[in-house]
């Protein structure tokens, strides 16, 4: 005979689901109260009209502005390239120190992991704003931001990659009497190289995206031009810049995805 499997009281009345639903509704009420949100207000009055006006201006780009965005655009790419490289190079020893199959003392591991975790919590624009305040306007602050940002990301991705490698080659080298440096160079390095390159490209992708934005607080690149243009209410010129950002980001994501699919 076919019978339904018996269910507990909580399952029968979906208590878990009801609990989460009530919690979410409660949080929604609190947060809409704090933020004074009123979705209807956006569709009433002239709010949506204002939004449409700006969007409409962006939709007819001022193409004569195009030659002026080349230099900042290239600067953005340069910033991302340099930031990713330096950040990743710094991340390599830190990742080694936080991987459990390379570094034995747990204290060292937890310290380096704590540092890279801490760095990853900081939003990029925040770092950029602080660096601009210290070093002044220009690409240097942006590069520093990107270095720190890529360092945090690469350190985490890399130590996870190192921890999942095949243990065989390490054991083999250790039995043969290799020292630590030789183990790293001949057992670990060849195994993580592809992952490293793939993560490097991914970080570069993310950096390109954020380097277009961090200029907004004065950290160089195309974002800085975007901010200048928007301060003057030239949304038609902003449209050109945003289109350029769109094209460059999509292009680089496409390229990097292609290379990464070849790598793995």
């Amino acid at each position, binding site marked *: 005979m076919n019978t339904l499997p018996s269910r507990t009281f909580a399952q029968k009345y979906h208590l878990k689901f009801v609990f989460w639903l009530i919690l979410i509704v409660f949080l929604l009420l609190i*947060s809409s109260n704090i*933020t004074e949100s009123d979705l209807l207000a956006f569709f009433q009055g002239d709010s949506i009209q204002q939004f449409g006006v700006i969007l409409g201006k962006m939709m007819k780009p001022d193409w004569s502005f195009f030659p002026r965005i080349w230099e900042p655009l290239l600067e953005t790419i340069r910033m991302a390239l340099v930031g990713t490289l330096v950040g990743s190079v710094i991340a390599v020893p830190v990742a080694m120190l936080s991987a459990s199959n390379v570094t034995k003392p747990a204290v060292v591991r937890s310290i380096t992991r704590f540092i890279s975790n*801490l760095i990853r*919590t900081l939003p990029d*624009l*925040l770092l950029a704003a602080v660096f601009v*305040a*210290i070093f002044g306007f220009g690409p240097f602050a942006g590069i520093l931001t990107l270095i720190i940002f890529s360092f945090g990301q690469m350190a985490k991705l890399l130590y996870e990659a190192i921890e999942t490698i095949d243990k065989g080659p390490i054991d083999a080298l250790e039995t043969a009497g290799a020292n630590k440096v030789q183990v790293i160079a001949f057992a670990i390095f060849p195994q993580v190289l592809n992952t490293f390159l793939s993560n490097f490209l991914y970080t570069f992708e993310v950096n390109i995206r954020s380097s277009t934005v961090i200029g*907004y607080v004065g950290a160089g690149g195309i974002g800085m031009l975007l901010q200048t243009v928007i301060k003057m209410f030239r949304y038609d010129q902003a449209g050109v810049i945003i289109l350029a950002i769109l094209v460059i980001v999509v292009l680089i994501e496409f390229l990097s995805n292609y290379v990464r699919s070849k790598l793995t």
Partner: protein
Amino acid sequence: MIPPKKSFISRLKNIFLIVLLIVIYIWAFAGINFHGLQPMAKQIASAVLEGFTHPEWEFVSSPLNRFLNSMFDAKIPEQYLTSDGEDLLAQIMQTLAIAFLGTILSSILAIPFAFLAARSDKDKSNFSLKLKILGYSAIFFVFAILISFFTNGGKFQQWPKFWLWLFIIEAILILFDSLINRLMKKSVFDTKSYFGKFVLTIIRVFPEIILALMFVKAVGPGSFAGVLALAVHSIGMLGKLYSEAIENLEKGPNEALTAAGGDDIEILTFATFPEVLPSFLNAALYRFEIAVRSASILGMVGAGGIGQNLIFAISTRNWSRLGIIMIGIVLMVTAIDFISGQLRKRIV
């Protein structure tokens, strides 16, 4: 054992790639100009460090300050006692509220986009299906025109034209696709999916801070602008993650329902939705983690949250306040990452 010999071509390729990389990096390092470095950088850096090591603890919470003053006679100055709603805790609550509302809104808004962008398994050489899609997008197009009537006070502006262009391009793609189908019995474009992915990419790449600025212009400065900006911007990434979840769906339950005679709506509610829901929740939680970070900087353009205090502290060179704000942001992000990580572990 002799390692397999690499062909000359593949070696040449590697050398070429390495040289290319070196040339790119020489170009990158040589092109950066470091002029415009602040001459005072050293002093300011030490001042900032000084601020970080002596954060302004009194800024954390003014009710707490009053409590400390009354109970322990802590002698906290008057200015910190009455700043309710302007202190760190209140601002962090606001930031979290912005991130939460924005993520909830976008996690709902992203669903139709995701179904648009997901590659479907329906017979791609089916011409009537393509006509149907064209019909749907025509409705979409009419909708866009209607919206533009509302937005510009009835004046026919530029962006209906943009939608029209999109529509024409899509129609050409579909016709081209079916032509290729006829000729080669093979589909080149999945038009619906490509169109959806195109829209999602545009949303994803559009700078968030500009979006926030536009919403600040529309609804005035405040957290509501931040909520709207986050809601719209998150659609890009959430839609992408959702559509991947839909594409990776197990086909079994869908086929079972089809076999039992379920119609499209029944398949959607009883097979597709329950199956993708965990992935959707996972993606939404992941996006919430990112949204918290974004919400803490959106205040820089006046969209509410801790960002406005931050930018104010920087422009008034109040480094000890900057220190406490940074500590607050780090703690908030860490806590949210931890909670969300635990929840995501339970979902999957």
